[in-house]
């Protein structure tokens, strides 16, 4: 009897999980489908779900008009660079907060998080002026640093949470065996925290990839990433929904594929230490 109830609940939860999954994925699916329609089919009322003549004309129009490769390359450098730089800064910071905390560690952690609550537009002008004076406006290096700083609180918090799960006795044992601080970090702590570090990297690559405020405001022609690529197909005066969908699909495809292949690491990292 108990087994039958358990089976029913299992089915119920599976259906609920799939429903939520489909609901979340539907806008992406709709964007992908729209990218294969003509502009007239894209705005048809009632909307056409699958019964349309599939066309690649939007992709060909987008590729003809825009230098997709350059936008993609800029996105890779900005998202990858800011994440790697963030990890380099955050690993020692999270280590010190997790294993040698001070009286103010909790306050510092909260203060770091509070910087995320500041509306970005509030510091647009100071940062814009800084970029002008340093000669780094419309450069990838500026965005690497800015996105690193913006995402740093999240990276530190995530790593801090993972590191707290690692017994400090293991690190003490390494120290007693004569490991230096560098060796302790590189050869003891990091390998044990690999799932956590991997998921932190993945999450931050996604955040940096999708970041649209700074990437749109600090770039022009040279350093513009895929967010600017999408923005160039949006228009309040003209129906370009199919082309916009094609551009959006091309912009999200790399990160979608990356997420798909690394979902196992992402889930194991995000649930690391969740159940004791």
């Amino acid at each position: 009897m108990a087994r039958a109830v358990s089976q029913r609940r299992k089915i119920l939860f599976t259906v609920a999980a799939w429903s939520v999954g489909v609901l979340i994925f539907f806008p992406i699916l709709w964007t992908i489908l729209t990218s294969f329609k003509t502009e007239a089919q894209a705005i048809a009322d009632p909307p056409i779900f699958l019964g349309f003549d599939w066309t690649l004309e939007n992709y060909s129009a987008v590729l003809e008009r825009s230098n997709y490769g350059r936008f993609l390359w800029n996105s890779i450098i900005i998202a990858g660079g800011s994440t790697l730089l963030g990890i380099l800064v955050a690993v020692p910071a999270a280590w010190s907060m997790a294993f040698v905390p001070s009286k103010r560690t909790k306050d510092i952690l909260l203060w770091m998080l509070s910087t995320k609550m500041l509306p970005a537009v509030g510091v647009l002008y100071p940062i814009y002026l800084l970029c002008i004076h340093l000669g780094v406006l419309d450069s990838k290096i500026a965005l690497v640093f800015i996105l690193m700083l913006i995402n740093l609180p999240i990276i530190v918090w995530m790593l801090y949470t993972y590191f707290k799960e690692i017994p400090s006795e293991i690190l003490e044992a390494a120290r007693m065996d004569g490991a230096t601080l560098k060796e302790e970090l590189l050869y003891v702590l990091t390998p044990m925290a690999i799932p956590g570090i991997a998921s932190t990297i993945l999450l931050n690559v996604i955040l940096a990839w999708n970041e649209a405020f700074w990437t749109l405001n600090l770039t022009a022609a040279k350093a513009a990433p895929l967010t600017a690529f999408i923005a160039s197909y949006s228009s309040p005066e003209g129906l370009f929904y199919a082309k916009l969908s094609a551009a959006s699909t091309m912009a999200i495809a790399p990160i979608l594929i990356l997420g798909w292949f690394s979902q196992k690491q992402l889930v194991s990292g995000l649930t690391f230490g969740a159940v004791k």
Partner: protein
Amino acid sequence: MSIKTKLFAATALSLFSVSALTAETITIATVNNGDMIRMQGYTDDFTAKTGHKVEWVTLEENVLRQRVTTDISTKGGAFDIMTIGMYETPIWGANGWLVGLNDLSAEYDAADILPAMAGGLSHDGTLFAAPFYGESSMIMYRADLMEAAGLEMPDAPSWSFIAKAARKMTDRENDVNGICLRGKAGWGEGGAFITAMSNSFGARWFDEEWNAQFDTREWSDTLNFFVNMMDDAGPAGYATNGFNENLSLFQQGKCGMWIDATVAASFVTNPADSTVADKVSFALAPDTGLGKRSNWLWAWALAIPAGTQKEAAAKEFIEWATSKEYIDLVASKEGWANVPPGARTSLYNNPEYQKVPFAQMTLNSILSANPQSSTVEPSPYVGVQFAAIPEFAGIATEVSQEFSAAYAGQQTVEEALAKAQAITNEAMEAAGYR
């Protein structure tokens, strides 16, 4: 090698070097609409003529506005040419942020620019942006539905006729709405429409002392007329409809009339996109007999930010892109219906262009809008669907949100107007106008 040959080679080399040295790469910020994208496709023609290369930064209109405002106010220098509108040009020109364009070459023939456009893009007699294309607004209507309703559209109709026709053309069972108008919040969306409409009802944003005027009968008449007509004959959810939503409805045969930008005429008459392409006719935007019609005036224009290092090359580009030759180039490749409209007088004198069905009505609409005197009662501002002061965009966005809430039935017209009055007066006081 003879001396003559050596001399020839040296001269050729030096000329090549000079040309290579003066060739620049200019960066242009622009909006994503049909005419601008078409221009990007002809960049090679400009490069072939001048040697200059062009890098395009295309952005959505509102993103572009924020982006170029940040850059020009900080003298960032990210762009050598900016695509801006009639609202920004006089304000930025007055601030000294733009390079004057009064010294364009004689071949360019600046006197050929439509006076309404040149006036709206100037400050104190200096032209600060060259119009790439201009627009007004007009009525696009279904001639077949109008005939079926037993009515005949005058060339210059009144609002009472439009309301009557809208109600008669409405056929809810067949999903036909008598009229489609913008209700979407945003100063350039529903805000632009209702401001232009209010001009024809005798309303104005400010009196001569910069006091808000939303507590007047004229504004109450405007908003009540709009809401009553749209509730009876407009599409469901019109409070969130902007240009694109109405274009989509009209192209699918779901609107009897649509009052909007004249550039839409080429979309709704294009059989590739519109199911009603052969049934569309045009008329001037309506009035109420007070001497002002409800059409607006706008131009997307090219301007050079002060401080650019490539001013000469930027001017060459502007001369090329807004020239008569560019219009001829587009006409020869894509037909006269696709040339950028509303900028040059000579275009409307061209017999070939006169054959385009919406050409004359577009010109008439542009000519009937006067940014220097857009209201029945005197007002202290320049602009038809906006007041050319820096504070307007922010205030009008908030006010249009209140209006949209009234369209959606979330509050009454009177409540919306009372809030608009308070918002506007508070902002104008804070800005030091009152």
